[in-house]
């Protein structure tokens, strides 16, 4: 599977590996890390127990690369952008998204990380099926 997608919940080892990528960069002063987790929302009076993610893999690759290029153009101090999104089933309380942006200084690291997450929500061809406690499900769309 491509580097932007990972089957199942993201592990502590995967998140640790992301953070270790920058350890030898002497031009980097700040890292901003966003971790997305499945929340046990209440839908139609039923609890979400998990989300099943599906993706159009080849288009994810293209769009993720495009998002990274856009971020690096808009934020000149950004050194690297890492994106890792789950596919398959991720239970409530488990991690489904990691975005890490490294920059020379903290301000752009934080702003660029936030912008990257918004662009992922807008442009990454990923779909989520919320699995409910009674074994029914509902397809969720991003709004706004």
């Amino acid at each position, binding site marked *: 599977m491509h580097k932007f997608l990972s089957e199942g919940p993201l592990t502590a080892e995967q998140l640790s590996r992301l953070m270790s990528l920058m350890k030898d960069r002497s031009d980097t002063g700040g890292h901003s890390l966003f971790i997305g987790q499945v929340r046990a929302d209440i839908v139609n009076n039923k609890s979400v127990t998990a989300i099943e993610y599906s993706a159009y893999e080849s288009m994810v690759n293209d769009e993720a690369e495009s998002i990274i290029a856009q971020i690096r153009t808009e934020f000149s101090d950004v050194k690297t952008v890492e994106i890792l999104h789950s596919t398959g089933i991720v239970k409530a309380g488990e991690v489904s998204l990691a975005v890490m942006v490294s920059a020379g200084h903290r301000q752009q690291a934080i702003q660029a990380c936030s912008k990257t997450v918004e662009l992922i929500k807008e442009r990454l061809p*990923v779909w989520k099926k919320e699995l409910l406690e009674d074994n029914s499900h509902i397809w969720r769309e991003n709004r706004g």
Partner: protein
Amino acid sequence: MFFGVLAEVTGTTFLNYTGVKTLSDLRQRITDRHPEIVHYNYRIAVNNLFTDDDCTLSDGDEVAFLPPFAGG
């Protein structure tokens, strides 16, 4: 190719067609086969690029029916 809720309503993730010249022709064939699809919002990408109905198709083109995204 069908993704998200469209894969569920059509009961498939992949259909193979030959001799289809334009995207509008393909859309009509799909709608004839799966009329329920008209009730759903979606965009169409050809070879990973969003396009419109007057797009011409060639053998080997990959056409994806994409519901609104829900990543992140």
